[in-house]
């Protein structure tokens, strides 16, 4: 291995360690209370190294948010040729809930909401990275289902709020107010009933 390549590998692994320590720290303490010095210590690097990789706590936070969100919203391929709309929507709902509960999105929402008075941009950017991107993805999916004549033509911007609202009320909102909340055992029932309520009106 050349020296140059060795250096690059070390630098990359340090960067990854900082990101992972940053993620841990932000999710546990929130943005304002997370300390750069602690993050550096956890990542086993000096604060100077940390600042070489990330110019500020804000930048580190923004990249942590982007990383958490980058996997979300693309779980479902538009190319699917399934005609089972009920199942398509069910799978989408599951991918969404898995992101929220298994991949830290609920915790992320809580911390950026907490920052609204002090760091308003963190909340606005996270909302854009998470909710707006998902909304756009869901809209493409529903519009595609309309094109394929599996759903009646309707205003999908409004439709998305109806479908997600029914699911989020019982499955997401309580988790914003309680870090220990888990999905209830009848979560699938609720999802199916929400989807059926939606399809009763909008299925073609």
């Amino acid at each position, binding site marked *: 291995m050349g020296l140059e390549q060795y250096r690059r590998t070390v630098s990359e692994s340090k960067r990854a360690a900082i990101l992972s320590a940053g993620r841990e720290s932000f999710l546990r303490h929130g943005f304002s209370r997370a300390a750069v010095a602690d993050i550096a210590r956890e990542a086993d690097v000096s604060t100077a190294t940390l600042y070489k990789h990330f110019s500020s706590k804000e930048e580190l936070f923004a990249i942590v948010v982007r990383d958490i969100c980058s996997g979300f919203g693309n779980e479902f391929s538009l190319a699917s040729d399934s005609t089972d709309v*009920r199942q398509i929507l069910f799978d989408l709902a599951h991918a969404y809930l898995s992101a929220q509960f298994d991949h830290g999105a609920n915790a992320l929402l*809580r911390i950026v909401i907490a920052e609204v008075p002090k760091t308003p941009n963190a909340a*606005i950017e996270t909302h854009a990275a998470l909710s707006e991107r998902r909304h756009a993805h869901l809209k493409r999916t529903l519009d595609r289902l309309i094109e394929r004549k599996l759903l009646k033509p309707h205003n999908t911007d409004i439709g998305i709020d109806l479908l997600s609202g029914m699911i989020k009320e019982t499955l997401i909102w309580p988790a914003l107010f309680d870090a220990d909340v888990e999905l209830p055992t009848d979560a699938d029932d609720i999802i199916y009933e929400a989807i059926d*309520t939606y399809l*009763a009106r909008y299925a073609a």
Partner: protein
Amino acid sequence: MEAKLETYRNAVIRTKRAAILRAARAQFLRNGFSHTGMTDIAYDADVSTATLYKHFRSKDILFAEIVEDASNMFKFAFSQPEGDEASLTDSLCEAAKAGLQSYLASELQPLMRVVIAEVPFAPELARITYARITHHWYGEAIRTLNGLVSTGMLKPHDTKRSAGFLIGMIKETFLWESLFRADYVSPADEDGRRMRAIIELFLNRYSVNAPELTNVVYLHN
């Protein structure tokens, strides 16, 4: 003379109490619950800390009172329509709109952010507050829906779940984004088509004239 003095005293007490609640609310919104001190509240309300503690034994109780006052302002007043499904749709739209307005006017929404911010620091407070607020909403909504079931306008069904759907659709459409922005203004919905879409979806499923679900089950097969 005695009676007059008594009235005066009561008026002073009421004024002080109101000043405390106002000051506390502003402090909580600005600094959060954990970072607000009772002395700061007393200072802003222009009362002594002794007076403050005479009115509210603890910061928890003071906070609970603010939330309770705000959440009691939410009303889902609904008068049974005479006649057909169209008038049921209209009256439910009106009631839901008025309910949403009463909620926005209560200014409970910014307090929701304060409560969420406390999840790591005062988890019990966050849990209890959310439970209290939703209990009040659900009580209002379920009462209305049960009334509509008993007069034969809605199918008999699990009204706790359908209340959740109704509340959830309204929250998602009009309130979700405001969790992330202090300056967010809820969509005006001047033509009422957002609220109408919510109510129509709801009635299409639960009204006594709604098709049975077998109509959509085939999609699963």
